[in-house]
């Protein structure tokens, strides 16, 4: 984990209020797992006036050769509205890579994986899918959005494997929720990232195979020191009784922590 003023190498709009940001720097080399995140200080001009708290954003993908990471974020709040104005050539104060991502090292016996994403939970699953495909795992992606205008990275996922787009209003892909299509699907392992109700629904559906979920919590430090981001363990006898999303997570094996 390092703090670095990374160089912005690209920023573009992907969908309604959704932006893709590319950052170059040494930090990229330190990324060890898909699903890790960075904690970004969004500065005002001159760096003299800025929102107090950093903003946690998942690493969508990492290009080791280019020393680049790609982030995808939704604007709409104070910090992300400033972030979307950041321009190539400027630098951004980034702390990362943080936390533990999706375990992809020892998945030799897995043949088929399904990744399930909702909204801005989709980005980290892209890096994950690419990694899995590289390891010879076939990946089915089920990506849920509110509406057609919110859909992003469809083509990118399709290049990696079968991809099902779902929208709540049916304006793109299949109408419904990601869990509507899970039944009877053939996979060895599942990975999910998205809003809490989605994670809960997925956890109910996928009880018989390994499932890894990525959690969100409001954060302070982002490195495990302030205990802003804790979640209870489901195991009442766990010696700590809690996990920190920022440093123990954000990815947990389903059942390790309470979803609430």
């Amino acid at each position, binding site marked *: 984990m390092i703090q670095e003023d990374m160089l912005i190498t690209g920023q573009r709009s992907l969908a309604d209020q959704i932006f893709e940001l590319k950052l170059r720097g040494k930090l990229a080399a330190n990324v060890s797992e898909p699903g890790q995140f960075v904690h970004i200080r969004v500065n005002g001009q001159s760096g003299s006036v800025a929102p107090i708290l*950093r903003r946690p954003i998942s690493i969508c993908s990492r290009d080791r050769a280019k020393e680049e990471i790609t982030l995808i974020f939704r604007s709409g709040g104070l910090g992300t509205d400033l972030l979307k104005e950041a321009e190539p050539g400027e630098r951004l104060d980034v702390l990362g890579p943080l936390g533990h991502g999706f375990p992809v090292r020892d998945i030799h016996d897995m043949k088929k994986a399904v990744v399930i994403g909702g909204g801005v939970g989709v980005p980290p699953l892209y890096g994950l899918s690419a990694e899995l495909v590289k390891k010879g795992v076939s990946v089915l992606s089920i990506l849920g959005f509110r509406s057609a205008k919110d859909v992003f990275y469809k083509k990118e996922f399709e290049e990696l494997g079968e991809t099902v787009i779902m929208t709540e209003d049916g304006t793109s892909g299949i109408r419904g929720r990601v869990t509507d299509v899970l039944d009877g699907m053939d996979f060895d392992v599942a990975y999910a990232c998205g809003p809490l109700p989605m994670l809960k629904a997925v956890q109910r559906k996928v009880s018989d195979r390994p499932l890894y979920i990525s959690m969100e919590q409001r954060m*302070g430090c982002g490195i495990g*020191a302030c205990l802003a981001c*804790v979640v209870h363990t489901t195991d009442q006898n766990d010696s*700590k009784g809690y996990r920190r999303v920022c440093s123990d997570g954000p990815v947990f094996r389903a059942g390790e922590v309470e979803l609430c």
Partner: protein
Amino acid sequence: MLAVHLPGLDLKNPVMPASGCFAFGAEYGNLYDLNKLGAIIIKAATLEPRFGNPTPRVAETPCGMLNAIGLQNPGVDKIISNELTRLAGYDVPIIANIAGSEMSDYVETAEKMSLNPVVKALELNISCPNVRHGGITFGTVPEIAAELTERVKAVSKKPVYVKLSPNVTDITAMAQAVEEAGADGLSMINTLLGMRIDIKTQKPILANKTGGLSGPAIKPVAIRMIYEVSQKVRIPIIGMGGIQSADDVIEYFLAGASAVAVGTANFADPFVCPKIIDDLPEKLKAMHVTDINELVGRSWKACAKKNESSLR
């Protein structure tokens, strides 16, 4: 130039992380050498382990943040066995922050902590609600704060700094009460009570509803209180509230602080403490100050002198 000597604390510099913003140092210790720090104020210890409040526990506010962590900690025994053992490997004084909801909790926790050789001083967090007195916080009634201080002083093997809550009508009365009760120093300020409501959910953002406001937003309140209190007490003050830079540290010293703690700013910049420590010498040089202790209370000492002479 930066060395500061306070009861129990021989500090190479006056900058330390504030309680609750640095846990027990392990995480920041991965980022830089903790020996750079003047001291470390570790997270509040209670007698029993506490899980704290439900999440969300933090919210952002204009130039500040709210927190309602709820004193989550593994309890004094585990802190001593796990955390202090690790911290013993550093050459940096540890100040143990103590909390409780009964006087007896405080006393027992304080005694245990003060026996540990790594701990050089205690910081009594009196902003906690007193269960016995119907939830009134220890830190808002001078008599209760004084009694608590006295009882902790009676058992503590180390100097006791009392950390004052700013949520009071008269902070000088609180300060004087705990000074008389034997406090060796003061820490000020703790957080201001605040709230944010999410206009989308129409509910308070924090699960606990109210939280403690920290960060630059509260700096003017802290400076005012330290300015007032430092003129009324003889014990030293560890100043805190919104410190982000060496300039802020100097402002605190001018107001009357003898050392400072940095809380919220660690979240924005995890290297802020060592950066401030590195920046201070040059700032002092530019002010023609050779010893930071010269600055303590200079904002009012100068005034005092002026008033004196204008009386003649």
